[in-house]
């Protein structure tokens, strides 16, 4: 039954142009960034791996931002537009509802990846890193998107308001993204170092650095970065389960509306 929710969301994204506008925005951003980077730095190999590293950060960063914004409203609009009641009066379970919504958000990430593919191919040409570059962006991006989507959905069920969900999600996104941009020297500081160990952005960027700059392309060579990402996903999934149980207890309609 979740596939009907998934299909409905995809069609909604296409027919309301919501999803397509996101893809267009991402495409324009990547066009501008990749052209700028390529035309300014054309003669150095360090620059190509540095360019790939920069581009990969932009692709994943933009994808996480877009998916977070989209996921903030995909559940909450059902309450705000008063369609939740008729939806849950059908045999649809909360589990199928959440799976369908998750798949819709994840599909947006996959669509963004497809849009980014020609840019990845054009910039990694001749580097022997194209497959690793694209493969790891897909893997790391998928884990990051999954983890953040679980978190945003948990917030959605808790707040039932797109404004509150979006605000909190963006605060967390910024809070996690900013320390990942610090230099490695700063990360030796105790607090930042501790955050860095569980920060999915750190795991993603460190892994990409390991792959693109140090040419450590096997999964085994990157397990220490992929594992924290899995842990992040598990943690946020557990949070989603908790809030889903709370939501079920409260009922579809929480107060005397």
């Amino acid at each position: 039954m979740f596939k009907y929710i998934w299909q409905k969301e995809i069609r909604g994204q296409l027919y309301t142009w919501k999803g397509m506008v996101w893809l267009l925005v991402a495409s324009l951003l990547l066009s501008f960034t990749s052209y700028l980077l390529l035309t300014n730095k054309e003669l150095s190999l360090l620059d190509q791996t540095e360019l790939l590293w920069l581009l990969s950060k932009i692709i994943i960063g933009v994808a996480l931002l877009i998916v977070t914004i989209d996921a903030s409203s995909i559940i909450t609009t059902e309450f705000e537009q008063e369609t939740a009641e008729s939806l849950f009066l059908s045999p649809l379970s909360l589990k199928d509802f959440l799976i369908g919504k998750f798949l819709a958000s994840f599909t947006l990430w996959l669509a963004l990846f497809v849009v980014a593919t020609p840019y990845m191919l054009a910039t990694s040409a001749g580097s022997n890193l194209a497959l690793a570059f694209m493969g790891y962006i897909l893997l790391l991006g998928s884990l990051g998107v999954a983890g953040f989507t679980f978190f945003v959905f948990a917030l959605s069920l808790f707040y039932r308001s797109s404004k509150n969900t979006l605000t909190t999600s963006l605060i967390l996104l910024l809070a996690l993204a900013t320390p990942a941009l610090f230099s490695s020297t700063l990360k030796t500081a105790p607090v930042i170092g501790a955050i860095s160990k569980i920060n999915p952005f750190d795991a993603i960027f460190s892994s990409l650095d390991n792959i693109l700059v140090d040419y450590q392309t096997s999964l085994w060579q990157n397990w220490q970065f992929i594992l924290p990402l899995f842990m992040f996903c598990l943690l946020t999934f557990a949070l989603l389960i908790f809030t889903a149980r709370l939501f079920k207890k409260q009922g579809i309609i929480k107060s005397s509306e």
Partner: protein
Amino acid sequence: MTMPEVITARNLTKHYGATAAVDGLELHVRQGEFFGFLGPNGAGKTTTIRLLTGIVHPDGGDILVNGFSIEDKEQIAQAIGVVPESRGFYEWMTGAEYLYFFAKLYGISALKKVATLLEQVGLTAQQNKKVGAYSRGMRQRLGIARALINSPRILFLDEPTLGLDPQGQKDIQNLLRSLNLEGITIFYSSHLLSEVSELCSRIAILNKGKLIAEGTLDELRQRINRKDSTLTDIFLAFTQT
């Protein structure tokens, strides 16, 4: 022949904070009845319907719908149709797409059923228009069509003619009458006394979460000792005491 009960509520209670939205409610609705559920604003009508349809969890009491406990969500969902108070639709969908979507959720093979329903509610000509462009009356009819998608035995309606013009109200009333004649039990919540008195075979009056009167129109007249009283008189007599 006494028809079996299809809606039973015993000592039903729901609190929101310190306020008892529904307080010890007893309801017994039989198969085939057109049951009117009246009350002033804030009486607890919508909360009662939400309790009976499983949208809200009761704090106390028992509910049986079509012989199933309220815990059997899937069984109850297949047996009932609901036109809820919240009137949200997916504005970007066409009327037909909207019904197809809900048909799939109910596991119903959509094409023929959707066409029949659209004809039944008079929306065949508008089926390919976006719901966002529908008038209020058309949306109400679409909501009824959605409520009928699973061929329910019990139909719950919460203020279905609210905000409609007289013609729109009449169209809905005629449709509901025909459905009731087909054997569908109708649980009809409204504060429009004229249409309740026209449509309903039995009426219950709710006030401040409590059931204060129940019976046919004649039985209620007898209770206030006024043979020729209108439903308005009856309602005022019960709610102002």
